[in-house]
């Protein structure tokens, strides 16, 4: 090893997964990037001590990989498909832009929407909004373009923690939900694999919490890394988590003294005392139309916002009232004995006893009652804590969920029960308790508090997509129809990706009854996404992509999706290009900080080959499409991270001029500096290049929504869901008016109080419907997050592949040891796993840490084109899962779950 002549450490960020960004430095020796290190200068402001995740260490190999595409390519074989050789040939950037520009002009000449009303342009990016932080000013290009269909998903919207996103935002501005880990003492984690998905901050905080004695109980069918790091593992049967939680609710409300709960919180800060009428809607004051509660002080029904009341938590009270149903239907009641919402709850959960739950969940008798008692005991009802002069309730208990628990059928019941369990002990949005950590559907999204405002019923306003006859949208504006079908998906820039993103693929093949025809987009941009292998029913998705007439892929290497592309545009990767990102504040999962600010990604090394900075590519596309002015205006409005002007400052770009990436980012950096200092400072790109990040402290009170709700007199909408019930009825009316019956099962999910159904049975019945039997498919197949691989194309990075190999199960089929031995399967034997849709194979990994009725596939590596990854020969569940209407819940979500069979192919 020779000693380098010049050595420098260049600050960067890594945002390869939603649990970031992580702040780091790249060591550059004689112009070659050699090492990644945490950015130690960030340790004082970063809640994970400034560390960076294992994936960041793969960036070096990612940059220098011989498998990278280093110049633009065009397709020479007009036929598309997995079996077709695309015949990619290298071309100049000029030729590449000419090809794309010609297509853009052709499309704009025809009109931005096609005959069916769908945008002619579509774009897909990887999950969680991550690619945005690598694509420079491309969002400004899309904004300049006009309508773009973002609904061709690659798993987002269905495999994400979907119900948590939608209902979380409704109930407590919680796109993601998290314990207040720094001060929580007791966590119940249902599939919430935070040690693999919570990033550096999750890893750091939970490590600290364990060392100080936080008790976490993990409920998962297999012993995940989070279960490993928990005090106790409860091997729960897949998709029965809701039953456990309902059992806990039963114990709390039927077996424990009422005073052990936070009765004050329930009465004053939730909808528990609201009186409910015979049709399932609130009983309202006929004059003010406000929901009524029974005031024990006055012994009379009063509107919910009457001062100085002692609302009755439970009971039945006779009164005259108005009831307002769906589509404006009204009922006047005289002398009706209205029950409180809480009493309705008592009735609803009466039969959900611990014994009932334990049988459904297939767990040890006594577990539900024991944990319910611990929940209440650890909640310390009545305790308070002072934060920055404000006295707040302190309830150090929380429940965390993960994928497959909080998406797909049964997820609504889980997230409702979780939110209710927090409310029962007064532990929602208070120190120590259950918090939301980011907002994506409500606007403004600057803070979680910013969008909080009271609605007419005393709950938080929520921007539901309309369901009334006048404004409901019968013709979808995008192919997955989220605004039409899913009122909760709202209408923020994130909403499209949160619709039923499989519908875009499914309906393109065959639209359901009375549904507008779904056609392929004329042009599809894709970046850092690979639906050909990462979505379900991968064979079908690949076929749909092959039907797209023109695909522009921003490409790092060949992959299964850009195999169908017409033009490949290689961009500078992570450490070769410039971009600014917001850090801190409150973001996904555990990313809630005591600071907020900005961090820069910058070229640490010269770009390899003929790759280009994404901002340069976006600018060129804008110029060639004749959209430069609109593009610059979009940047000025904040498409590249921050608004360039405010009342205190103005760093706007001249819209008519073409600007270099450095100018664009310099202005952005200046605006960022000004935003953080109320216009005082205006340090630009050079300052950020040197320092890497800039922050300012924020109030810890911003972590908790409760103070804001208290200030505005808003109640948490728990337990009764009058609003959802009404919206569901209205949506049903609209769909039936248009002859659509295929959503009726989903409509049943909209109700005042949820009910437990046989959720695993939904998957079992679907298997049987397709000609399978449960004897033929005796196992549940589930998946689990890998910290080493997840999100960032790390499957082709040798270092990640190698270190992931230190953790069990990454490349095989994990099966219970005793069960495997019964089947004559030994560790390492090649096995085939099959479902009614397909089959996959890989080595058996025998483990005691998995239920006998469950198989686990961590990796989803169905690669057949991506260099390196295609040689892995690891199994993938994606080819085993159908895209199915029956398996889609009312929010448009499904789950990574399927019934499978297994057989041995070869002995070791």
């Amino acid at each position: 090893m020779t000693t380098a002549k010049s050595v420098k450490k260049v600050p960067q960020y890594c945002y390869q997964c939603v649990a970031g960004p992580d702040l780091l430095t790249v060591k550059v020796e004689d112009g070659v990037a050699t090492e990644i290190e945490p950015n130690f200068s960030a340790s004082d402001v970063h809640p994970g001590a400034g560390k960076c995740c294992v994936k960041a260490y793969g960036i070096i190999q990612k940059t220098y990989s011989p498998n990278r595409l280093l110049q633009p390519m065009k397709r020479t074989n007009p036929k598309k498909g997995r079996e077709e050789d695309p015949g990619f040939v290298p071309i100049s950037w000029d030729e590449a832009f000419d090809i794309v520009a010609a297509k853009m002009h052709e499309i704009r000449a025809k009109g931005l929407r096609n005959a069916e009303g769908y945008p002619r342009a579509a774009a897909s990016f990887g999950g969680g909004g991550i690619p945005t932080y690598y694509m420079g000013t491309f969002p400004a290009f899309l904004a300049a373009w006009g309508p773009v269909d973002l609904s061709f998903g690659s798993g987002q919207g269905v495999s994400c923690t979907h119900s948590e996103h939608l209902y979380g935002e409704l109930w407590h501005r919680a796109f993601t939900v998290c314990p207040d880990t720094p001060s929580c003492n007791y966590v119940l984690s249902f599939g919430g694999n935070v040690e693999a998905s919570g990033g550096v901050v999750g890893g750091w905080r939970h490590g600290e919490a364990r060392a100080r004695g936080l008790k976490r109980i993990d409920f998962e069918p297999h012993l995940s890394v989070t279960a490993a790091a928990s005090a106790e593992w409860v091997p729960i049967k897949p998709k029965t988590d809701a039953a456990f939680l309902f059992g806990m609710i039963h114990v709390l409300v039927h077996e424990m003294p009422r005073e052990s709960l936070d009765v004050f919180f329930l009465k004053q800060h939730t909808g528990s005392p609201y009186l409910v009428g015979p049709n399932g809607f609130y009983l309202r004051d006929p004059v003010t139309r406000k929901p009524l509660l029974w005031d024990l002080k006055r012994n009379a029904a009063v509107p919910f916002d009457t001062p100085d009341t002692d609302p009755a938590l439970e009971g039945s009270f006779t009164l005259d009232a108005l009831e307002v149903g769906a589509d404006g239907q009204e009922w006047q009641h005289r002398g009706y004995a209205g029950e409180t919402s809480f009493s309705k709850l008592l009735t609803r959960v009466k039969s959900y006893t611990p014994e009932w739950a334990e049988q459904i969940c297939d767990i040890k008798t006594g577990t539900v009652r024991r944990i319910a008692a611990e929940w209440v005991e650890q909640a310390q009802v009545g305790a308070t804590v002072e934060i920055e002069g404000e006295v707040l309730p302190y309830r150090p208990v929380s429940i965390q969920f993960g994928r497959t628990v909080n998406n797909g059928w049964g997820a609504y019941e889980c997230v409702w029960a979780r939110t209710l369990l927090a409310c029962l002990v007064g532990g929602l949005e208070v120190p120590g308790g259950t918090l939301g950590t980011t907002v994506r559907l409500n606007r403004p999204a600057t803070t979680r508090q910013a969008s909080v405002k009271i609605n007419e019923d005393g709950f938080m306003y929520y921007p539901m997509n309309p369901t009334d006859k006048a404004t409901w949208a019968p013709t979808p504006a995008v192919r997955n129809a989220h605004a039409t079908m899913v009122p909760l998906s709202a209408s923020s820039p994130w909403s499209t990706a949160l619709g039923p993103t499989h519908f875009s693929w499914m309906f393109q093949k065959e639209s359901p009854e009375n549904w507008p025809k779904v056609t392929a987009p004329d042009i599809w941009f894709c970046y850092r996404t690979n639906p050909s292998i990462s979505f379900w029913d991968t064979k079908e998705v690949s076929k749909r992509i092959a039907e797209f007439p023109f695909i522009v892929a921003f490409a790092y290497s060949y992959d299964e999706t850009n195999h169908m592309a017409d033009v490949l545009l290689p961009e500078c990767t992570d450490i070769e290009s410039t971009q600014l990102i917001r850090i801190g504040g409150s973001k996904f999962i555990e990313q809630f900080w005591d600071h907020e600010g900005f961090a820069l990604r910058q070229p640490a090394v010269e770009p390899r080959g003929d790759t280009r900075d994404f901002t340069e590519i976006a600018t060129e596309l804008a110029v060639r499409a004749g959209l430069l002015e609109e593009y610059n205006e979009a940047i000025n409005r904040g498409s590249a991270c921050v608004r360039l002007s405010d009342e205190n400052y103005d760093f706007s770009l001249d819209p008519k001029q073409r600007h270099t990436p450095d100018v664009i980012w310099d202005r952005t950096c200046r605006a960022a500096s000004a935003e953080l200092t109320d216009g005082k400072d205006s340090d630009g790109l050079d300052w950020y290049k040197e320092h890497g990040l800039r922050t300012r402290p924020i109030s810890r009170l911003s972590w908790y929504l409760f103070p804001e709700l208290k200030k505005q007199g808003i109640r948490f909408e728990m337990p009764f869901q009058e609003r959802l019930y009404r919206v569901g009825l209205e949506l049903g009316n609209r769909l039936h008016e248009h002859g659509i019956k295929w959503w009726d099962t989903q409509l049943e999910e909209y109700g005042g109080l949820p009910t437990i159904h046989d959720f695993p049975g939904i998957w079992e019945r679907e298997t049987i419907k397709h000609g399978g039997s449960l004897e033929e498919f005796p196992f549940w197949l589930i998946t689990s997050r890998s910290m080493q691989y997840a999100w960032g194309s790390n499957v082709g990075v040798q270092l990640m592949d190698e270190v992931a190999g230190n953790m069990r199960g990454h490349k095989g089929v994990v099966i219970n040891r005793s069960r495997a031995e019964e089947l004559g399967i030994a560790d390492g034997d090649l096995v085939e796993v099959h479902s009614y849709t397909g089959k996959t194979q890989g080595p058996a990994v025998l483990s005691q840490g998995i239920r006998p009725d469950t198989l686990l596939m961590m990796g989803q590596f169905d690669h057949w084109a991506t260099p390196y990854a295609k040689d892995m020969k690891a199994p993938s569940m994606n080819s085993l899962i159908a895209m199915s209407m029956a398996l889609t819940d009312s929010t448009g979500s499904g789950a990574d779950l399927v019934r499978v069979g297994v057989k041995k192919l070869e002995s070791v």
Partner: protein
Amino acid sequence: MPRYIMTADLRRCIGCQTCTASCRQTNATPPGVQWRQVIDVESGEYPDVRRSFIPVGCQHCGDPPCMHVCPTTATYQRDDGLVEIDYEKCIGCGYCAVACPYQARHITHRATFAYGDKPMAPEEARFDARRMSVATKCTFCMDRVDAAKENGLTPGVDPEVTPACVNSCIAGVLAFGDKQDPHSNVSKLLDETQHFRMHEELGADPGFYYIWDKK
């Protein structure tokens, strides 16, 4: 003289392998050669099962069997407790590798790279022919510890002079410092916790302490 040791708080470890990746990169070891590694150990029978993650590697023993057997004195122990290898002296006999009860030593006879036989630019820049066919292992990032003497920094406290794995650890598992100094980070940590050393019965006086509970 100081006695540098490492501690691993097993209560915290989540097997993320960040230390493994960081070590591989910092020390430019070839594919598969992990001087620092976290193993994933399952124990018990369903449903009473545990899974533990254990950082392993050279324990920089106080009485290192590897050093005693080394016929060339290539393996030596420094006054500060670090056990090191002189690559110029080592004959690659492998005796140290079979003497080490911690499986910490590696000998590679053929240059390998992440993607086939051709090195990428960083691999080429950092390829060290001296390491071929000789024993290699964790050095506790010796160059950093040495730098501390020159610049007055404290290993285990100042990242510039702290082993890469410790710097990288995202769960606060790994710590490094001077056990002779009663006020050092590691001394305090060991005072406050219950800990053990692996294979202590073999008498090598390992310099790697595993924390398993508070006191």
